[in-house]
C-alpha cells in the first residue's frame, strides 16, 4: 500500500509552482544599469471648495537599477531614482524627488538582434516640499510600458522604453480640509545595462 505524507504533497505543490519561475529565469543574470527620462507630468489638484486645477510640469529624472533576469525572458528589476520638476505644484519650493520602482519585465527574442519587452510595476516616491505643515509628501504609482534592449558588446546593452505612469499623491492636510492630487506621465527612458 502506498501512502502519501502531507509534507510530500506540499513539496510537490511547491515544486509545481516554482517550475514556471525556474523556467522563466533559466538563463537569468544579474544586471545593473542606469537610465534617464524627461517628460511632462500632468497634475490635477483639487483644493477644498474649488474646482480641480490642472498643471503640467517637466519632470527630469535619472535612476540606477539592479535586476535579475534574462534579456530574452523574464526579469525583476529594482530602480532607485532622483528627479526634479521644473514647476512648483505643492508648495512655493518643490525640490528633490526620490523614488523606488519595482518592475516585472518580459522580453522576447524574435531573432532580429534586439529584444523587445514590456514591463509593469509599481513604485513609491517622496517629494521634498516647503509647506506649512509638512516638508515632504509621498506618492505611489503604477505603471506599464514597452521598450527594447539593444545589445552592444562586452555585456552592455542599450535600453529604450516608454512607460505610462499613474501617480497618486498623499493628501495634503490643511487643518479641517485637505488637498487631493494625482498625476500621470508618459516617460521615455534611455539607459544602459551591464549584465554579468
Amino acid at each position, binding site marked *: 500500500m502506498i501512502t502519501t505524507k502531507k509534507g510530500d504533497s506540499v513539496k510537490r505543490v511547491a515544486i509545481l509552482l516554482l517550475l514556471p519561475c525556474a523556467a522563466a529565469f533559466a538563463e537569468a543574470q544579474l544586471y*545593473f544599469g*542606469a*537610465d*534617464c527620462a*524627461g517628460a511632462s507630468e500632468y*497634475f490635477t*489638484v483639487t*483644493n*477644498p*471648495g*474649488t474646482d480641480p*486645477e*490642472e*498643471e503640467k510640469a*517637466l*519632470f*527630469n*529624472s*535619472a*535612476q*540606477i537599477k539592479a535586476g535579475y533576469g534574462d534579456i530574452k525572458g523574464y526579469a525583476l528589476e529594482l530602480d532607485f531614482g*532622483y*528627479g*526634479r*520638476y*521644473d*514647476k*512648483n*505644484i*505643492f*508648495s*512655493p*519650493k*518643490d*525640490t528633490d524627488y526620490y523614488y523606488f520602482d519595482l518592475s516585472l519585465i518580459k522580453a522576447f527574442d524574435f531573432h532580429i538582434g534586439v529584444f523587445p519587452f514590456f514591463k509593469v510595476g509599481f513604485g513609491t516616491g517622496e517629494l521634498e516640499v516647503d*509647506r*506649512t*505643515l509638512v516638508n515632504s509628501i509621498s506618492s505611489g504609482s503604477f505603471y506599464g510600458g514597452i521598450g527594447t534592449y539593444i545589445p552592444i558588446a562586452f555585456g552592455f546593452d542599450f535600453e529604450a522604453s516608454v512607460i505610462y505612469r499613474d501617480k497618486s499623491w498623499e493628501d*495634503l492636510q*490643511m*487643518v*479641517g*480640509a485637505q*488637498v487631493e*492630487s494625482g498625476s500621470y506621465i508618459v516617460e521615455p527612458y534611455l539607459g*544602459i545595462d*551591464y549584465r554579468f
Partner: protein
Amino acid sequence: MRYDLPILLLPLLLWTGCGENAGNRPIAGDIDSIKVEANATAMAATASVQVSARAYYTLDIPDRNVTEDVEWLSSNTTIATVDGLGVVRGGSAGGNVTVSGTYESFGGSVRITVYALKSLEAVSPEINVTQEQTLRLHALGTFEDGSKRDVSDAVVWRLGKSQENNASLEQNGTLYTGDANGTLDINISRYDVNASLRLYVTP
C-alpha cells in the same frame, strides 16, 4: 569596469539638473492663518462662552470653521476651562483668562473676563408646602459685577439627610415633598459659595 558606473551616472545627474524650477506659485493651496473669536468677551462664572476657530487658506480657498480641529487651552483653569468643542465654562475664581486655539504653529487667542459668583440664594415660591407636592425651587446668584441671575442649573442641590426618605430633590431644583410632615432643609452650593433654605411640610 571600476569607473564605468560613475561615468554613466555623471551625465544622468547633469540631466536631472536641467529642469530648473520656475519659481511659480503652486496650484495646491495651503493654510494661511487661523483666527480665534468668542461670542462674548465677558461672562458670569456659571455661564459659558463659545469660542471658535476659523482657518484661512491661500489661493482663494473658502475659509472654514476648524473649532473642533484645534487644541484649546485656558491660561488659568481656576478662572475658566475650555473643552474640545470650544465651550468656555467659568471656574471658582473671577478674573481675566486667555483662551487659545492652536494647530501646530497656527492659532489665535481671545481674552475673556469671568465674573466670579459672590453669593447664592435659594428661593422657593412658598415656604409652607403640603405633602406630595412638587414645586420648582430656584437658585439666584450674585456676581462680581453686581449682576444677579438664575443659576439653578449651575449649582449642586442637596436635601438634608433626615428628609431623604420622604422627599426628593432633582439637580434642576425640582422638589417632591414626600408623604411626611416636618421640615425640609435644602442646601445649594457652587465651589465654596453656599446657601440654604428650610421648608415646612404640612398635611
